Every structure is written in C-alpha cells, then in structure tokens.
C-alpha cells in the first residue's frame, strides 16, 4: 500500500508535465484541427532556453522560467505563421506532414547546435526530502515534486481562466466552434490562432523547464517521447477538450509510473501506446468527447 502510494505521488508529478504538454496539442487541435507534431520539440526548446538562461545569463529560476516561456511563445507563433498558415486551405495531410517536418527540423537543429550529448540541468532548487512525511506515512515526497505539481496546476487554472473568462478566450472558443462564422462576425482569426500557439507553446516551455529541474538532464531529442505521450494524453481525454488533456495527462503519467514499478520498467513507454490503441478501439472520442461529431 505504501509502495502504491509512493508510486502514485511520482506518477502525479510526471503526469502534471504530460498534462502541460497535452494542453498545447489539444488547444491547437481545437482551433485548427491540426495535430502539431512539433509541439514536443517546442517543449525541448523550452528546456534548453531555461538551461541557457540559468547557465549563460546566470539568471534565477523565475526570470529563466519567464524567458523560456517567451522564447517558446515566439517560436510557436513563428512556426504557425511560416509553416502552417500558408497551408491553411490545403488538405489536412499536407499540414500534418509539414508538422512532422518542423519536428525533425527542430530536433536536428538542436543536435547541430547543442550536440546530442545530454546536459546536466542546473540544480536551481536544492533537493529536500520531507522527513516528517516519510516517518509518518512511509512515502518520500521531495520539494521538487511539490514545485512541479503546484506550478503545473497554477498554470492550468490560469489557462482555464483565460479560456473561460476573457475576451480572447471567448474568441478562441468561438473559432474552435465555427471558424468561418467567427470570421464573418468580425473575429480576427489570425490573431486568435497566433494567440493559441503562443499560449500552448508557453505551457510546453514550462513543462520543459520543470522536467529539467525534476530529472536534471536535457538533450535535443528529449521531446520525442513526451511529445507522443502527451499526444496520447490529449486523445485519451478527448482531443480539442481542455479539461480532457489535463485528466489524460495525469492518467498517463500515473499509468506509466505504476507499470514501470509493478510490472516492468521496460514497459514504461509501451503503456502509452497500449492506452492509445485501447482508447481508439473502445472510445475514439476520448473520455470527455462526444461521439461522432466531426469538427472542422
């Protein structure tokens, strides 16, 4: 039981990061109907931006965090502007292929400029284990886990606020519901799309920096697996549905940790694909999705 509880805690910490990345996938899908396969690599760039802010500029954690988010916002908006926007009226498969191309581009630029060798992320938050909790409950919780989960949840609450309580959020929901009508009602859909990419990329950047803090190592291909897993999380929750991505992210993180703890750690990546296959067979629209509604 204690062991299970311990793994749940680890799973929630990992899941909160998947949730942050999954949100970007789901928001972009909601607005454009596009799976932005470059999203996992934006997360990677976020981790590197944070790394360089801390090591080169010797900035503290908060400015590095903000710097990383701004860099990725700019990157996400530029990718949309230069790679996806010219294809907005092209067949979906063209945009999808482009997204995969952008993903390879970012990964390989990373390999060229930053070398494929993993780097140690600065230990900006000294590790602290809460001894009292360990003595009473037998589970180990460290301060990094608490930082990761609380920052993630704070960002998700902020996102919910933006989407549901602000004008731009309202415009995002309108564009997601019916882009053409929103356009004819005077909504500047280019702004809305750019904004969506900016917000989604900022969340991914936050995820990148948090992962750096948590696992202490980053490399140019670190976005590949988490990108795929976060995509599965978004599908699991119901792609295009924001709370679905959050729930899906946590489920996936917890499932991965439980599988590697109680079955075999070599299955930790396989579980994501098993979940994807299962959800596509049983409930393709996802946990929160309504069945068979083709959204364009």
């Amino acid at each position, binding site marked *: 039981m204690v062991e299970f509880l311990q793994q749940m805690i680890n799973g929630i910490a990992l899941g909160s990061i998947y949730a942050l990345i999954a949100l970007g996938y789901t928001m972009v899908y909601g607005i454009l109907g596009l799976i932005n396969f470059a999203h996992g690599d934006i997360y990677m760039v976020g981790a590197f931006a944070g790394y360089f802010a801390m090591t080169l500029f010797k900035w503290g954690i908060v400015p590095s965090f903000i710097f990383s988010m701004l860099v990725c916002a700019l990157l996400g908006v530029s990718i949309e502007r230069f790679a996806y926007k010219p294809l907005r009226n092209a067949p979906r498969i063209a945009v999808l292929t482009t997204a995969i191309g952008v993903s390879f581009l970012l990964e390989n630029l990373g390999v060229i400029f930053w070398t494929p060798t993993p780097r140690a992320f600065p230990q900006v938050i000294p590790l602290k284990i809460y001894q009292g909790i360990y003595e009473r409950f037998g589970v180990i919780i460290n301060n990094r886990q608490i930082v990761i989960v609380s920052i993630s949840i704070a960002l998700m609450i902020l996102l919910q606020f*933006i989407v549901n309580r*602000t*004008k*731009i959020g*309202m*415009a995002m*929901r*309108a564009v997601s*519901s*019916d882009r*053409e*009508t*929103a*356009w*004819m*009602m*005077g*909504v*500047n*859909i280019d*702004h809305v799309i750019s*904004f969506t990419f900016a917000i989604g990329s900022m969340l991914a950047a936050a995820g990148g920096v948090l992962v750096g803090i948590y696992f202490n190592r980053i490399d140019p291909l670190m976005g590949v697996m988490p990108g795929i897993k976060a995509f599965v999380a978004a599908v699991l929750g119901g792609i295009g549905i924001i709370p679905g991505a959050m729930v899906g992210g946590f489920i996936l993180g917890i499932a991965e940790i439980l599988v590697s703890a109680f079955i075999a750690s070599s299955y930790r990546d396989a579980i994501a694909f098993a979940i994807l296959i299962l959800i596509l067979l049983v409930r393709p629209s996802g946990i929160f999705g309504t069945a068979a509604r083709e959204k364009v």
Partner: protein
Amino acid sequence: MSLLRLNDVMVAFGGLLAVSNFDLNVEDRELIGLIGPNGAGKTTIFNVITGFHTPVRGSVIFSGVDITGKLPNYIAKLGISRTFQNIRLFQNLTVLENVMIGSQIHSRISYIHSLLRTSYFYREEFKIEKNAMKALELVGLERLRDEIAKNLPYGDQRKLEIARAIATEPRLILLDEPAAGMNPRETDELMNMIKFLRNELNLTILLIEHDMHVVMNICERVIVLNYGEIIAEGAPDEIKSKPEVLEAYLGSVAVG
C-alpha cells in the same frame, strides 16, 4: 444613396457556374427579397457580399468602398452582417457570449488589455456586454442569457443569430431564410422584428426566404434568381404574376 452595389458578378466553383451576370443596386434602408428555387445561387450571393467567396469577375462596392476579395472580418467591421440558412451558432458558448462575439467587433481592446485587465479594459468590457444585452432584448432572449446556445429551441436559435448579427452594429444585414422551420406565430413575430430593424434601427435588409407570405408582405422589391441569373425583378405584386417566375418555381406548365 446606393449602399451596396454588385457589378456583373460571376462566381464559379470548378466548372460549375454558381452566379453569373449578377447586378444589384441596394439603396439605403431598402428591404429587398431574394427568391428562387434551391440551388439558384442565393446563398452564394450572400457569401460573395460577406467576403467568404471571391468572385471570378465583377466587383462589390459597399458604401463607396470596393470590398471585392476583402477578408470577412474586415467586411464585417465595415458594417455588413448576416445570419445563416443552416443555423450556425457557437454551440457551446452561452447565449450572451454568442452575441458578445458580435458586439466586440468595434472594440479597440487589445489582447494585452484583456490579459492585464486595465481600467480601460473594464470600461470596454462593460460596453461590449451592454451592447450584447441590448441586442438580446431586441429579440426577446435577455432572460436566457446564460443558457448554452445549443440547448435553445429552434426558433430561439434563429432569433439568437439575428441578435448576434445586430450586435455587430451593421448598416446592412443579410438574412438567409430566417423563417425556415418556424411556426406561423413565430413567423409573424419575425416579420415584425424585420420591420422593426428597418424602420427603427434604419438597417438595410437583404432577405432570402422561401416563405412567400413573408416575402410578399414585407419586401418592397423582390429579385428572382434561377440558375445563378436574375430572371425577374420588381414589386411583390408584379413578380407574382410573371410567367418566367412561375415557370422557375412550378415547371413550364401554365397554372390557371
């Protein structure tokens, strides 16, 4: 003064000619009916005026500005709004939010303001909501403001579309089959509302409608389209008896 002018407009989809040789001149505060069999090109005309389709030939001039090929959001800001034949509300937004999407059109509020919540933002926000409520009151939906749009009964959804269109403060409003699916009582309400829009709000109205009772009672001028071309034009009473109109609607059998 002429408010809207379409000159020799031609629209084609691939090899299919949807509209051709289309000329239209709409005076300020006119109420014009656009009728014709299904597939005659009526909605295509609306799509051209709102910038959703670009004509392959011809031009669209609105209040002195050439809007041919301009983007829909720009055209909407200039003062043209519309409703849709197959209702197109923002399904998961509330009634009020649907209308606020329309009423935020003239707000100069930037997304930065909206995120930073400046005092300017609150003033603008208040104005947007007030205008939206005014539009809702006009169609009598103010009590349903927090309802999710897709849960409204059919007739109310049609009214909500009109409210959303009015909220953009247009000078010209294009109504695409607003009476479709309405019962006689709702249709009467609708006719009063359209008259109100014209007489009290001074809007210019272009109306596509299959319900002849509506067209004949409220329109001053009727344009009949068939196969993408104008086949007749005139006052409702003149139109009714024209043989080419009867033929388009009923086939070439003379009706006694």
